[in-house]
């Protein structure tokens, strides 16, 4: 469903993403983990056709993101980092615009709009302009936009960043509820999120894949704690002595 083949990106001499290879299928929730600047966002931008790879390619549902960009983009729902949206629009107008661009029409369009509005509890703010919304609502508008066309592949860049614990919980529930029939790729640096929702985790640093395994197996590397594994693989060397959990 998603095949990444030698994907690389460099800006001048600076390599941001270095020869990534992996593939994954529907039913998986893939967590993209890594320190800031590891290349997580750049990878997602390449998968969604926003940034052109310097080398290698990826295909989504059989569509190459370089040569069949639009076909691939039709199968993807994407939440960019920070959930950008048009500030002067209301969520209702914004989602209708996305529906038009996605080519939804008639009864299906209405049904999809109703479903995402209901699922993300946007009803109370539908008529308010987006720039007056709280961070949590803005993020939910971004998520609603991403799942509106019921995509096969969902790519979410830091979907819970800046949300309060209740909102984080809701977003994770949403991800879990959709994970059976879709492939979901999320990037995060919140380790508990990986344990909560991901079936597989890839840790990258300096643009390279360091480990690719299930969260449970990864945690074992760190003596049962994912954070120790993370520090060990991203900093290199031995795991620091287990500190007493706070």
């Amino acid at each position: 469903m998603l095949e990444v083949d030698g994907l690389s990106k460099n800006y001048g001499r600076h390599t941001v993403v270095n020869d990534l290879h992996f593939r994954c299928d529907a039913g998986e929730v893939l967590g993209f983990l890594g320190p800031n600047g590891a290349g997580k966002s750049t990878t997602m931008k390449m998968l969604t056709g926003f940034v052109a790879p310097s080398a290698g390619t990826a295909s989504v549902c059989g569509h190459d993101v370089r040569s069949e960009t639009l076909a691939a983009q039709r199968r993807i729902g994407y939440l960019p980092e920070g959930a950008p949206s048009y500030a002067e629009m209301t969520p209702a107008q914004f989602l209708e615009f996305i529906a038009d661009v996605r080519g939804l029409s008639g009864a299906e369009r209405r049904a999809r709009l109703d479903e995402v509005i209901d699922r993300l509890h946007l009803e109370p703010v539908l008529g308010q302009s987006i720039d007056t919304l709280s961070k949590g609502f803005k993020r939910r508008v971004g998520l609603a936009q991403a799942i509106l066309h019921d995509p096969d592949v969902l790519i979410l860049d830091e979907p819970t960043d800046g949300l309060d614990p209740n909102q984080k919980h809701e977003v994770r529930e949403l991800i879990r509820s959709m994970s059976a029939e879709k492939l979901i790729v999320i990037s995060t640096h919140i380790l508990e999120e990986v344990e909560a929702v991901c079936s597989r985790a890839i840790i990258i640093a300096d643009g390279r894949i360091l480990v690719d395994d299930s969260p449970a197996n990864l945690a074992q590397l760190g003596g049962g704690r994912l954070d120790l594994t993370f520090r060990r693989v991203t900093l290199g060397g031995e795991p620091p002595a287990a500190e007493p959990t706070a």
Partner: protein
Amino acid sequence: MSVVKALFRRELRSYFATPVAYVFIVIFLVLMGAFTFYLGGFYERGQADLRAFFNFHPWLYLFLVPAIAMRLWAEERKSGTIELLMTLPISPWQAVLGKYLAAWAFAAIALLLTFPIWLTVNYLGDPDNGAILAAYVGSLLMAGGFLAIGSCISAFTKNQVIAFVITVVVCFGFLLAGFSLVLDLFSAWAPQALLDGVASLSFLTHFNDISKGVIDLRDLVYFALVIGTFLYANTIVLGWKQAD
């Protein structure tokens, strides 16, 4: 095509969702009126035509049209919505066309709201309305040319001020391409053929031709080429530096 339509509607609506549209239209109409009656001497000329009105269009457009165009792409970059836009199944030319047409339609709305001057001149005398219509068409085409230049330049930067200033300078060059201010830059070294080529690029010459009431196919082709060329360049710029 429905994608272009969706973009067009979103974009045009966004002008009126913020004070931008109202401020722009009011300033545009006030300046048009002031120029026509004070600088143009509309009454003093004692002639039933709108030369006093149309003569100032190129100069007003020089500052007002870049103000519409500067936000087209720079704002998308600044707010990060360009990432949303370009990861939707929209091709670059659809995005460029949808946004451009909305800006042009907005300029057309502002221009149409000058209709009281047309009513005035018809009340006072018996003008050649065909010539006035031609001048309106010419004015709209000239606004379209400026907008295409501005849209292309706006795609280079996330800074609207930079987009504005550079657009004004480039538009100024196009406006005066037939005059010594611009031609002297070339006359010292360029062959006569190039000099004639540059001179023929002048917005002012083409607009003046049309505003005399003669819609010549060459003038139409000229504006169509300017618009097409800059919009094409716009899609290329987007492709290049989509993510920067």
